[in-house]
């Protein structure tokens, strides 16, 4: 039994525990124990991974394990991690852990809520540890479907519409993805679903012919891109986020959207390198639009969740943008951006949820002077905002700098013009963030009801502080994590570059 499998096993045990749990306290107990275990496991994995790398273990994927699952179809249960997956696992564990505390007082049916929540996190963890395409796809879909019920039952606003739209769009994406996976599998000889074997042409796999690559690349990229909020397939994201309950928004924007970027890199670009070189310009334009358009849209929104959702579209667009630039620096930046955006958007959604829970409005225009009433939440909100617009010292800065520097390394005009355009989004981000923060927090509070509101409770403070610590940690000491990521990214990008 490989210890990576614990990432799936623990959520499974949590599901069992939740099933058996009676009463709210037992449910919370199961969740806290389970998510803490996951966090400890992810931390241990990170430390051990770094130690192994420092010890000179240069294998592509560490902790590999495999056993045959569906033998006639060459499908195996295969796990393994590299620097990118380790970073993502750490992120997921942090978000699940804090998400548990944020949903502390949710009603009704806390138990059922956590059941679906845990199923979702199982899908997420399973996705990041798997290196078999079938497994990856399976976990991907496991992570999508609980969203329908989580939003539909526990959401707010137009929840039925949003839940259905989100589910159908994401499932539509995965329909393309499934076709792409078949194409890659049979294009490479139909002998193995192992991603490493297909990329390295070992284990019975041979190179996929160029014409085939040009068909499967757009399918897989769009398939994952829908989840990564690729323009014009991003429209599920604002509605979905706005209607979802707080912790689900956190998990969704924080982790689930990263599945898209990770999948684009791990499957579309890694396995179809020639087509990636040939066709990336189409998607670069689309992601460029995502980046700028998302930021612009955020400027005109008045609902806090919509502002953050469009800002997510913009930031996730940057992730895909960095990946498509195909340089080591930009891709490392993209992975860092996934990490940083995951943390800060989770923080943002958590704070929005907490503020909404008190004021019962998310309309920026109806709130003023909240800083005096809830200073803790106010300060944290400012920190989240600054992280979002990329202030040095916080994680967003490191990530965005790497992406832009890496993108500019491409010497031709097309890439440079796009980079300059994407950079503009930072300015726009400053506009919507500062306006929102200024309007909401400062000034004199005029609403009588707001004067009686209380500041954060202990479990809310705990969740928020955890997230801020991570954001500041990455922002202040980025080198260990960025070198861990770039060690894993560099060989892949080199291989992709050589494939031309």
């Amino acid at each position, binding site marked *: 039994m490989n210890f990576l499998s614990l990432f799936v096993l623990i959520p499974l045990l949590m599901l069992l525990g939740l099933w058996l749990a009676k009463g709210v306290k037992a449910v919370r107990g199961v969740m806290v124990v389970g998510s803490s275990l996951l966090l400890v496991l992810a931390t241990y994995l990170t430390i051990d991974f770094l130690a192994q790398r420092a010890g000179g273990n240069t294998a592509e994927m560490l902790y590999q394990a495999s056993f045959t699952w569906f033998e006639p179809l060459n499908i195996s249960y295969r796990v393994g991690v590299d620097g990118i997956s380790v970073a993502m696992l750490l992120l997921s564990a942090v978000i699940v852990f804090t998400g548990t505390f944020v949903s502390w007082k949710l009603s009704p049916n806390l138990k059922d809520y956590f059941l679906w929540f845990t199923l979702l996190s199982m899908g997420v963890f399973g996705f990041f540890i798997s290196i078999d395409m079938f497994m990856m796809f399976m976990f991907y879909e496991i992570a999508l479907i609980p969203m329908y019920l989580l939003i539909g039952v526990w959401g707010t606003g137009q929840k039925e519409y949003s839940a259905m739209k989100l589910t159908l769009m994401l499932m539509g994406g995965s329909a393309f993805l499934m076709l792409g996976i*078949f194409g890659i599998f049979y294009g490479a000889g*139909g002998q193995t679903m192992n991603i490493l074997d297909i990329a390295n042409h070992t284990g019975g796999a041979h190179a996929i012919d160029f014409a085939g690559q040009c068909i499967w690349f757009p399918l897989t990229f769009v398939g994952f891109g829908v989840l990564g909020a690729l323009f014009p397939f991003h429209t599920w994201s604002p509605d979905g986020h706005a209607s979802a309950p707080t912790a689900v928004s956190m998990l969704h924007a924080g982790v689930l959207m990263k599945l898209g970027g990770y999948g684009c890199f791990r499957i579309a670009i890694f396995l179809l390198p020639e087509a990636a070189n040939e066709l990336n310009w189409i998607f670069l334009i689309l992601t460029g639009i995502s980046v700028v358009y998302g930021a612009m849209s955020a400027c005109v929104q008045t609902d806090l969740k919509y502002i953050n959702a469009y800002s997510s579209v913009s930031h996730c667009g940057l992730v895909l943008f960095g990946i498509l630039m195909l340089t080591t620096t930009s891709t490392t930046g993209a992975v860092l951006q996934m990490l940083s955006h995951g943390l800060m958007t989770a923080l943002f959604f958590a704070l929005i949820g907490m503020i909404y829970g008190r004021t019962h409005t998310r309309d920026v225009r109806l709130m003023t002077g909240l800083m005096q009433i809830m200073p803790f939440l106010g300060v944290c909100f400012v920190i989240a905002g600054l992280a979002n617009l990329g202030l040095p010292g916080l994680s967003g800065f490191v990530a965005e700098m790497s992406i832009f520097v890496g993108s500019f390394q491409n010497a031709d005009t097309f890439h440079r013009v796009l980079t300059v355009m994407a950079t503009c989004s930072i300015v726009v981000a400053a506009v919507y963030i500062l306006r929102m923060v200024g309007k909401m927090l400062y000034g004199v509070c005029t609403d009588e009801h707001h004067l009686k509101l209380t500041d954060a409770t202990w479990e809310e403070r705990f969740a928020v502080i955890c997230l801020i610590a991570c954001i500041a940690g990455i922002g202040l000491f980025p080198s260990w994590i960025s070198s861990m990521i770039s060690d894993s990214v560099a060989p892949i990008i080199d291989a992709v570059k050589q494939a031309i």
Partner: protein
Amino acid sequence: MDYSQFLNMGQELSLLAVILILFVADLFMCTDRKSGKGVLNTPLPVILLTVHTLLGLAPLVCPCCVADATAFGGMYVSSAMAVVVKTILNVGTVIVFLTAHEWLKQPDMANKQGEYYTLTLFTLLGMYFMVSAGHFLMFFIGLELASVPMTALIAYSKKSQESAEAAAKYILTALFSSGLMLYGISLIYGTTGTLYFDQIAPQIHATNLVQLAALVLFIGGIGFKISLVPFHLWTADAYQGAPTTVTSYLSVISKGAAAFVLFVVLYKVFAPIIDQANLLFFWIIIFSITLANIFAVRQNNIKRFMAFSAISQAGYLVLGVMGATPQGLTAIVYYLLVYMAANLGVFLIISITEQRSGGKVNISDYDGFYRTNPKLSFLMTLCLFSLAGIPPFAGFFSKFFMFMAAFKAGFVVLVLIALVNTVISLYYYLLIVKAMYIIPSDEPIPTFKSDGYTKLGLALCTLGVVLIGIISWFYSYIDQFSFGL
């Protein structure tokens, strides 16, 4: 005559024995002499059928020594795969009997329950003959034996007008399609001079228009049984009008047997003109899946809804026929197994809800069902997710493998269309989930307790939905029989 060849028909004979025992037992057990009231004897058919299923599995315990067994000079052929299919049908029928308990408990039903069991088992026997046919005559007899008692079953609710209407519709279309089929068979006989499957194939030529016509007529006939578009028009009315247990039997068992036979006949008889057959099926599948999906979206009666869902599922089932590859056959049988678990699970819940709520079968009646019956809602959701192909439930695996088989056979566009349709189907399955979980209702179906038989059936279905996919043994086991066919 060598009577030992009857031994090769072990499963048929044992089913016949079950039928006769039930027939005789019915004379003594049907009414309680003292009170004059009807006495339920659900356990007897369930136990007998279970024993029969286990006996039938005996030759499969050691898969290496299974050889094709024939009887009557090749009219009857029993392959290992046929035994697997028959076993799946058996298990399905057991679950249908468990569903029926609550319905037969009604005062006016208890006196005629014996007929219910014997009629159902006779149709099952007919399907056995279809599955094991090696000769068109045997095949046709099986087909008729499976259709005619079915009409009586559909019309079983004597006082319901809908039930009678459904039966009339069913028998008329059944006869018409039998006529088509017979005409096709006669064309084959006319051009080849034989009706044995293995003797026909060498004489089939793609240039022979009469034989192409025979292919079309054959597909028309069998398409009726599987309810593929454009032979589906009876489906919605028959499903709606028939008693719910009969609907569940219609939607899974008779469909599954016919799909398997379709594959066998295409593979054995029409192999030389498989390209033409593929062309036909290309359009049949596209229309079946798409039209049924579009119609399903608009339904409010849940049985009618399941009818359209069944048509679209049949389209997916037939996807495995494309190319007639061994992988396709495995995919069909596996799909059938998974579909059976999920679909019967849904029908169990529909049936018990109908019985306990005084006949509520509209989707809008399920509003707020989660509040009052959380466990049943949860199980229903699992089954619906499995039907929609959501992991980790079995439906995901069966759909994935089905698409994989079709993709490998080279039908990429068809797979794409089918995949897009899975999104539409997800939409309408979610409509039921939405009704149960999200839409509030002033008068939800009140909380009720299910009886033991329903619980047992639900447990079996849930186990199937959860485990058949994750445990790869099922797929591998079926796969090892698909090569020799």
